[in-house]
């Protein structure tokens, strides 16, 4: 459309040959018949360039045209990059595929995404310049027509500006624009405050790839970007956990989800990924259960998935100080009421523990009692659960100035687990003894990685 107007206005940038012919004809008539022009010789008007208004209109049109072309180029490149992102290593193993994808995603974050996000911004500028140039050009034709067109265009411009202002004022506004995101980032920079994660452009553009399974999680909670840099400083498993987190958010295949959760559960120490991982596990958990009044039931066929996701969710909650649990709590309490009953669930101990961890201040009557009598989990589940409880114990201990004791129900779990005949796995025994040692006032030191035997307890 812009090019059509350029073609239409372009002749006005050059001298009109008809004007020259008309002037010469007037001169000829005047020379042959001196009475026609009253004795005076008509002046031969020289062309002094296009009128400034036309020049301005054409300039704006060219800018608009250029912006359109550049945004088209960026869109093509972005599409190409996204295709590479989606299909990178698609023919290799799942692990390689996930790692490759994660590397590319991290690259997107590291290198920034201003180039990609500038495409829609350029298109909007192109439209703006086109509108202004049209108004300028029409004003040379007819002033009333130009005014009517200006009012029409101004009305929509006003709506657009209102949307931008509202989006800047209210971060939760659903109609964000590149301009509002830019202004908000600028304001955040001036205030020396990092921008709200929900404004992360990367999230806005990559979220459709990893569509969130349910709407239970609040905006921004699943956003991996804010936690990524912190996560990279953690252990060597960070990349794999981020891959798993992505699988949990995107996959619809139960076997894939189960294997991803199983991988997560077997990790000695979960890297600190903030609320990202917790959000992924919780989304699956919510997908598997239904709440009727206060009764929580698991959908048929999803028992194992519910159990695994609950276990992993519990493990992610074991680092409550590594991220703000307010949103996690809010999302959880939206789904599970305070007086939720988990009696009918196969792994009700896990659910009750989660409920207790996320509602620590609830009154005793509403607090679900965790009974270990009859708790006889599989080896794998037992190890994961023990690890989660130990991490909780450590977290409570460290978070309270090394004064607080380990919760009674965790010690009862240790008592129950150590009473098994034969004893449970070494990992469970170590975790239980570590929890006991913490309560006894010993300083728990985790050497971090590899084998259970590498952890130790130093006595103060």
């Amino acid at each position: 459309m812009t090019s059509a107007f350029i073609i239409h206005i372009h002749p006005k940038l050059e001298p009109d040959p008809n004007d020259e012919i008309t002037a010469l004809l007037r001169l000829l008539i005047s020379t042959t018949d001196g009475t026609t022009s009253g004795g005076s010789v008509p002046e031969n008007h020289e062309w002094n360039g296009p009128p400034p208004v036309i020049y301005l209109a054409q300039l704006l049109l060219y800018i608009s045209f250029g912006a359109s072309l550049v945004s088209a180029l960026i869109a093509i490149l972005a599409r190409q990059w996204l295709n590479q992102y989606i299909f990178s290593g698609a023919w290799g193993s799942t692990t390689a595929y996930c790692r490759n994808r994660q590397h590319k995603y991290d690259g997107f974050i590291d290198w920034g995404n201003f180039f990609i996000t500038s495409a829609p911004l350029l298109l909007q500028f192109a439209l703006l310049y086109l509108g202004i140039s049209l108004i300028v050009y029409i004003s040379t034709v007819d002033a009333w027509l130009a005014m009517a067109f200006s009012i029409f265009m101004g009305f929509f411009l006003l709506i657009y500006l209102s949307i931008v202002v509202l989006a800047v004022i209210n971060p939760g506004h659903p109609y964000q624009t590149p301009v509002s995101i830019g202004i908000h980032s600028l304001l955040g920079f001036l205030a020396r405050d990092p921008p709200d994660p929900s404004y992360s452009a990367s999230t806005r553009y990559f979220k459709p790839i990893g569509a969130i399974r349910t709407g239970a999680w609040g905006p921004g909670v699943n956003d991996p970007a804010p936690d990524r840099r912190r996560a990279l400083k953690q252990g060597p498993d960070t990349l794999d956990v981020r891959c798993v987190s992505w699988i949990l958010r995107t996959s619809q295949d139960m076997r894939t989800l189960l294997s991803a959760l199983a991988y997560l559960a077997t990790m000695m120490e979960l890297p600190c990924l903030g609320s990202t991982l917790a959000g992924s596990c919780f989304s699956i958990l919510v997908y598997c259960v239904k709440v009727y009044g206060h009764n929580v039931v698991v959908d048929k066929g999803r028992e194992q998935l519910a159990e695994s996701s609950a276990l992993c969710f519990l493990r992610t909650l074991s680092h409550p100080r590594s991220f703000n649990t307010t949103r996690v709590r809010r999302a959880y309490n939206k789904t599970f009421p305070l007086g939720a009953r988990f009696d009918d669930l196969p792994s009700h101990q896990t659910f009750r523990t989660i409920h207790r961890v996320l509602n620590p201040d609830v009154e005793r009557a509403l607090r679900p009692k965790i009974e270990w009598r009859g708790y006889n989990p599989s080896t794998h589940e037992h190890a994961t659960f023990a690890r989660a409880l130990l991490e909780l114990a450590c977290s409570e201990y460290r978070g309270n100035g090394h004064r607080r004791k380990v919760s009674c129900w965790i010690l009862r779990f240790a008592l129950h687990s150590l009473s098994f005949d034969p004893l449970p796995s070494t990992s469970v025994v170590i975790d239980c003894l570590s929890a006991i040692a913490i309560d006894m006032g010993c300083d728990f030191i985790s050497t971090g990685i590899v084998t259970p035997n590498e952890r130790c307890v130093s006595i103060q």
Partner: protein
Amino acid sequence: MVEVSDLDSIRSKRKAITALFPYAVWRERDGKHEMFDALLRITKASDIRDYIWYHVEPLVSALLREGTSGSLKLAMVLASPHFPWRQFKNGENLARLWTAAVPTLSYTKKYTDEINRSVVDTLLHIASQDTLRGYISVDMWPSWLNARPSLPPVCAGRYWGSSRDLVQTIRGLKNADTLTSYLILVWSEWDDFRDGGLEEMRTSIQEDLRGTMMGPNRKELLQRLDHVLGQLDLGLGHLRQHDRDIDEDAVQLRKRQYGGLKKELQKVEDK
């Protein structure tokens, strides 16, 4: 770790100590006795034993069952005087398992005194409860009471074992030696008599220990009473070594009770 003497610390760590108990048992099974011994010492030295044993009741039941290794059974029997028999949820089952386990114990001679002490203590404790008494076979009484181990100053079996019902049970055995052993065991300067036990003992002296045939038994009992009264004469300072709450009234009461029993015995002797 905590010092045994620091009772407050032990009390505040009772949940952790309880949780550690099963692991100590497994170490004991593997021949590593240090942790179990330490826990036993802690339970003996503090007032948390009810708490601990109440929570490990299922484990204790499992360890007393058939098939458990001898050392673990032995450990459980040694610990059994500290069990809160009156508070166990499933005390009847535990009493049944305990009475079945005791005859199967095998131990070296150096443990004999300690085993005898533990078994008699527990036997009296169990027998003091109507619901559990039936699980004790008739054979157990003479075989263990006649060993006459020296019971410790703080002894739940002796404390609860001087009730009327239990005296009647022992009398029902129609065995003068067992009755004598029983009386020698429960007569102590450290404890009073429970629930009409004193009256039943007087009756027993009058009815079961009369006659010339009972002379040696009466002599033993008189010696025991003299010993008890002699200890009571040492005064509050001596008794407060193990019973901080005892007062002069309690001492006088015990003197009257044991003095009355002595008179009763002497009457029978004089006849």
